């Protein structure tokens, strides 16, 4: 048979043998992106590493390493991690914004205290991204924060984003707000459609 088996687990053949051992953060400063990448991946769930991850994230230009840094923060998922990730919602770089949202979406309890602030941010792009964060909240909470937003929001794409999330999580409590929206947006075809579809989803359930 052509199959061979080594008796010990194959030692790393590649020239960089980072011999990943106990979590420590100095590798995050290494000029070699492979070392930074390997180090980042050992720091998920290590609360004490959050400041080092934050510092590394600020300077990191290699996309793969950036993502690994964010994964590590996501896995730690505490209040400190959330504070590090939130500013990236404002990044000029679409990839970074989206990565930050992905990471924060995994942390619904940790992000809860920040929701009101994010949903009333001056930047409509931040408000749009923030509606996504309501998705993983309990339905009642999510409905409440999104309806509050809709009552006062004038930017049509922010409204669209909020309605999108309500289509998945909205409870019957959302119906009055949505009916008001139906009138407000009767002249914007997509929003009109979005509201009607979402009302149908919510009202169309029996239980």
């Amino acid at each position, binding site marked *: 048979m*052509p199959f061979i088996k080594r008796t010990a*687990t194959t030692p790393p053949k590649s020239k960089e043998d980072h011999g*990943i051992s106990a979590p420590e953060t100095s590798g995050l400063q290494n000029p070699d992106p492979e070392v930074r*990448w*390997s180090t980042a991946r050992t720091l998920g769930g290590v609360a004490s590493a959050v400041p080092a991850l934050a510092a590394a994230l600020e300077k990191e230009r290699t996309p793969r390493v950036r*993502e690994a840094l964010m994964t590590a923060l996501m896995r730690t998922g505490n209040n400190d991690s959330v504070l590090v990730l939130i500013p990236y919602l404002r990044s000029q770089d679409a990839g970074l914004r989206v990565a930050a949202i992905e990471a924060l979406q995994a942390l619904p309890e940790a992000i809860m205290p920040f929701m009101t602030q994010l949903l009333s941010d001056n930047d409509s792009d931040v408000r749009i991204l923030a509606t996504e964060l309501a998705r993983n909240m*309990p*339905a009642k909470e999510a409905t409440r924060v999104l309806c509050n937003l809709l009552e006062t929001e004038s930017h049509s794409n922010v409204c669209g984003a909020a309605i999108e999330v309500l289509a998945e999580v909205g409870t019957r409590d959302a119906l009055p707000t949505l009916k008001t929206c139906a009138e407000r947006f009767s002249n914007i075809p997509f929003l009109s459609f979005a509201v009607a579809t979402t009302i149908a*989803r919510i009202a169309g359930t029996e239980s």
Partner: protein
Amino acid sequence: MAPPDGPESGAIHITQEDVRRLCEFLYRRTGMSFDDNKRYYIDRRVVERIAVTGSLSFQSYFALLRSDTEHEIEQLVNAFTVNETYFYREDHQLRCMTSHLLSDLLPRKQRGDSIRIWSIPCSTGEEPYSIALWLMENWREVDNHNIEIVASDIDTRALKAAAEGIYGARALMRLSSDVIDRYFARIEGGQVQIDPGLRESIQFTRANLIDAQDMARYRDFDIVFCRNVLIYFDDASRRAAAENLYDCLRPGGYICLGHSETMSRISPLFSVRRFPEAIVYQRPEAKHDES
């Protein structure tokens, strides 16, 4: 939609809108989509899960599903898919391996380098043994190369069973009697045991996909089969697993996921490669690594 008959009558009724909501959620989370002729099938499975979980309404079931309480997403997805393991399961990927992947990656290797293939999770061994059998039965060049097959799982009982290589008729249902005769010996209880040479030539190890330190022991794989496990991980764990798997692959190496899985719900690390038999994902070759 009529409620199901039987002792559970008066059971929860789900509406068209409920199904739309649920299908949209499943599509977003897993990539699975259901066209109209599959919708009835979904209704029944969902009604079953509502009953099994003791949910009092579709809404309360959906809340359970969204929060993935007690791995409900996994339970629901399992209700839609065949999740037993058997030899030559999803053999289109094995065919892809021998028809395309191997010839694609051989030119990148040095003379004398083994071809390294990893089955993780390997469960009770059907998958790694299937890889070996398929190669011997379908790859003309199989005797011209050294092939290392590593098989790993987090479950040591499964690993022990895999190393023993004893199977019943159900596991063998896709194998021809020729193949069974060639590689298995009949033992008591109507079962068979796979050839001892094969058992000895596969390296069985315990490994945890999410643990970077654990996974660092595995390097330079040409092909990884990681089927029907990532779909059940939460987002953070999926990403960690994908990052680890990337590192375990050689540049240009391939990863095959399960039939209802897609990297689009997991990680952007890999390039999409589409072959006639399957979509597989590739670690970018060296130099295209960093952008």
